[in-house]
């Protein structure tokens, strides 16, 4: 990501990141992008569930 993209993202997130730390975020943003790429695999639309909650029988308060 570019410095401009990081600056825009921090505004959107509402994070007051000190100036000197922003360039480090630019440098490290490649790790974020690489991990996001790694978890995106070709999957059929119904290839779920992923940690769908399973409620125990008494969870309705019965």
């Amino acid at each position, binding site marked *: *990501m570019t410095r401009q993209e990081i600056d825009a*993202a*921090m505004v959107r*997130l*509402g*994070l*007051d*990141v*000190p100036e000197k*730390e922003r360039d*480090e*975020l630019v440098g*490290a*943003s490649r*790790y*974020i992008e*690489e*991990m*996001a790429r*790694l*978890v*995106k*695999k070709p*999957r059929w639309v119904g*290839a*779920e*569930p*992923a*940690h769908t909650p399973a409620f125990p029988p008494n969870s309705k308060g019965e």
Partner: protein
Amino acid sequence: MIPDFLTIAEAAKLIEKKEVSPVELTQSRLQRIEKLNGQLHAFIRVLPDEAHAAARTAESEIMAGRYKGPLHGIPIGLKDIYETAGIPTTGHSKVMQDHVPKADAFTVTKLKGAGGVVMGKLATHEFALGGPSFDLPWPPARNPWDTTRFTGGSSSGTGAAVPAGLVLGGTGSDTGGSIRGPGAYCGIAGIKPTYGLCSRAGILPLAFSLDHAGPMAWTAEDCAIMLQAMAGHDPADPASAKVAIPDFRKALTGDVKGLRIGLIRHFYTTDNEANAATHDAIDAAAKQYEAMGASVREITVSPLAEWAAPGIMIMMAEAYAIHEANLRTRFTDFGEAFRDRMALAGLWTASDYVQATRRRREMVDELDRAMASLDLVMTAAAPTEAPQIDEVPKFAIMERPSLTMPFNVTGSPAMSVCCGFTEAGLPLSFQIVGKRFDDATVLRAADAYERATPWRGRRPSL
């Protein structure tokens, strides 16, 4: 005269026979803390009055014939994310330095109920993620084998306190390796139990779906003793499993004959390349298991980065959600390591997070398939010995894929086991991993290895 170093099992034997009193033992540990904590920074809060009171109670109970078991009268420490009634629980952070819980964490109640004597609160990385940091209200813990070295994190205070003999055992938490990392760098035993075996209620969270509570101690046997006390169903933790808790210590037969172990070498030979000392020590450990009658065969699974990515993403996204309000209003009250890691986490989208959870499901299935004809797998716990504490990069957890995170993703029981030392005297370790809810076999294999090798006979000279 009480020795500087005792295991929980050794001390328990002496206490049960009334050869050592819990009060004497507690006093000896307080003296050791007084002597060494200035170098190690393992404790951020020592509780001498509370410890003395608990020790006196234990002594009275034992003298009255009400011996509770092997934790009765044993000095332990608590990572400062475990809530303690009336005593600050800070997460090692300025943001929560005034937080005084009203109640003990479920696991703290259980440890106290088993007779454990709480000596104080131990250092952690900020909220179990940001560290080592030098800009927090307390300094980072130091490695007792070489105080210029990193303890690993985030259960850094426990990692420092146990080998130094400040306590006989302590609590850790493990979201991506925070028990096994300090276990490896500090040369102790630490088990991340199966997800759901120990309640997280009353423990400051890092990431709800990956957090595990567990014990750290000098030996696998001591971990078994502590895990016996900590494990058990708790309705206050939605992930808490309703399962029968086996007798972990009884499982420690010393016998591994017939156990089938898969060695995941590519994790530390190509995916996150270990140094020669680590490599050789793990090879020797595998041979040791074979010599004891286990079968060890190399297996190949997806590259380490495929396991680490969903774990890191889920961990950091969940942490961001937990701390979002404070990050927006008090960003610079957090340490730089924590806040900048969180700022990066904010760059992921909601879709990225969901894709990570889908990937997690696939990785769980993959490990189950890989272990279908195995009892255990082993691999490295860390690629090297402990690095210099001031040379740990801010984004280290992202730069190289974590060797420990795969088993947080899968919820498997996983343990660090010391398997030797470098020429400079720094510990080396491997990781042994079991099937979910077969924590007993992990402990059994670790204990058998410890009994057959000389490494538990060596302590740091301080």
